[in-house]
């Protein structure tokens, strides 16, 4: 139990540092924008011809733009600690309700991509690891090298050209149906599977050469039983641990792929908030993405603890 507590405590501290860093950066971002912030925000909220001194004054009071920097920063932090992300400077709606809408789309995309990458990558890797230097091993290595050298936006570009423009198999944009999910999820999954298949392959090859597996076969188990009963669980730990490493790739990929395929998720919202200089939305989306990464990493830590309960050296 103590190891679990240590993991949770460390991750909690990590989450706090992330929140403080993002909050502080957003605060200075807000202050650094050119022109009178209150008028800018009022203009983007109510339209250019509706800006009055009163509207700007209301915005100024609402966002504490009239306070000195130190006091405003303290207020900003206290809002953050109370999980109050404020109001979008563009739409005027609370940032949380905006994000709540987008989070579902992002989660759907990320889940589909991860599932697809596990289906594509892990069995291939395990099979290749059971037979090192076979044709399957060499083919999957070549594919992994190619897809690791091709960033997600290029994979997406090729998929759009090949599957959407050339053959019309799948739509290039739009979250409306399952077909719309195909290309963005595949784009992310190919990059993820390229790495995870090699990790799975190395883990399985190492396990396959281990003495305990030799013993399992010597005591009379069939190859299949030896692999299913003994090899899989041992080979799973590095694969699951690597999933934690891949989460960062997934997160960056989500931002890129959502923008590329006009997928209405958090990454897309982040890029648009940046274009519109909507700082509360920028802060909210970056925070949710960063804290989501911490949360998922914690889940991976816990799964690793369950899979391999031995105390670490």
């Amino acid at each position, binding site marked *: 139990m103590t190891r679990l507590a240590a993991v949770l405590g*460390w991750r909690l*501290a*990590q*989450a706090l*540092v*992330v929140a403080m*860093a*993002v909050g502080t*950066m*957003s605060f*200075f*971002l807000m202050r*650094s924008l050119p022109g009178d912030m209150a008028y800018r925000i009022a203009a983007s909220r109510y339209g250019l011809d509706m800006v009055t001194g009163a509207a700007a004054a209301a915005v100024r009071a609402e966002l504490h733009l009239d306070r000195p920097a130190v006091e405003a920063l303290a207020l900003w932090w206290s809002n953050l600690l109370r999980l109050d992300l404020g109001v979008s400077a563009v739409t005027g709606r609370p940032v949380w309700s905006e994000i709540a809408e987008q989070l579902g789309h992002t989660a759907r995309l990320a889940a589909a991509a991860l599932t697809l990458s596990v289906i594509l990558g892990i069995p291939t890797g395990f099979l290749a690891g*059971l*037979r*090192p*230097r076979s044709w399957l091993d*060499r083919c999957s*290595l070549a594919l992994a*090298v190619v897809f*690791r*050298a*091709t*960033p*997600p*936006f*290029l994979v997406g*570009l090729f998929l759009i*050209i090949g599957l959407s423009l050339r053959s019309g198999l799948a739509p290039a944009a739009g979250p409306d149906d399952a077909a719309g999910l195909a290309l963005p999820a595949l784009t992310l999954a190919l990059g993820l599977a390229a790495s995870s298949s*090699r990790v799975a392959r*190395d883990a399985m*090859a*190492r396990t*396959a*050469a281990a003495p305990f*597996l*030799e013993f399992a*076969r010597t005591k009379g188990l*069939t*190859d*299949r039983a*030896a*692999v299913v009963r003994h090899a899989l669980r041992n080979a799973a730990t590095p694969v699951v641990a690597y999933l934690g490493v891949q989460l*960062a790739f997934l*997160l*960056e990929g989500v*931002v*890129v792929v959502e*923008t*590329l395929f006009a997928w209405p998720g958090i990454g897309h919202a*982040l*890029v648009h908030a*940046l274009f519109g200089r909507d*700082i509360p939305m*920028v802060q909210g989306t*970056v925070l949710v*993405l*960063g*804290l989501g*990464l911490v949360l998922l990493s914690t889940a991976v830590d816990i799964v690793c603890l369950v899979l391999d309960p031995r105390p670490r050296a």
Partner: protein
Amino acid sequence: MKTPLGARHESIEDLSSSVAAKYAGFGILGVIAAIAVLGPTLAGESPYTQHLDRVLLPPGPGGLLGTDYLGRSNLARLAYAIRLSSGLAVVSVLSAAVPGTLLGLVAAWRGGWLDRVIALVADATLALPGLLFILLLLGFAPGTIWPFYVGLALALWVEYFRLVRASSAVLLASQQVEASHLLGFGLPYIIRRHLLPELMPMVLTVSTFGVVTAVLTMATAGYIGFGLRPPTAELGLMMSEAFPYWVEAPWLLAAPVLTLVLVVTALTLVAARRHE
């Protein structure tokens, strides 16, 4: 099911670790560097000069790699894009490697609360992938290059810190370092003679992957549209500008795409560690 379970575990990724692959990597990098150095001279014009009477020309005697939709020399633009990317990569990797390595040494040497604090900051940094850092910084100065330098350096230093921290802790506890210490040698000598020779190869490998990250990140940002702005010659921007013409002028799209993929592959081949 016939499975050679007893098969000896062969070296991992033997393809990429072979010496031939390493030379191939250096060869590709040489060709790319030659394009960057000689390109503008061969093209004979600036990457911004437009010739609206000769747009989308195929590669040939007229323009070595053809012309884009504004009649600009594709070769000159490619050369400047490579220079821009490699410049960014070298500067951001250096400004991540030096502080990262130093912090790793300090943490391993002093230990205690200092070690814990730096490790916590490093872990928190990992929760914000480089792209998010860069996006936040781009908010301060859209369309400029310094958010890339700063964001990449902020995201990349963690790897050096972790690597150097872990390896130095082992080395500092070793007998040869203890012997040096007892003989009266100071920290600078121990770092120079005992730590750096062991650390440098690892730091170099990480740096190579750092260059890959930097080049890919800038191209990604350029392509998506939140990076540098036209008319800058940048790999990602070149791709997004060439994409609408992929039927009429596939070479226009192919030049930056091939360059990017080849650079990344070559760097991966060069960096691949030999697994004994």
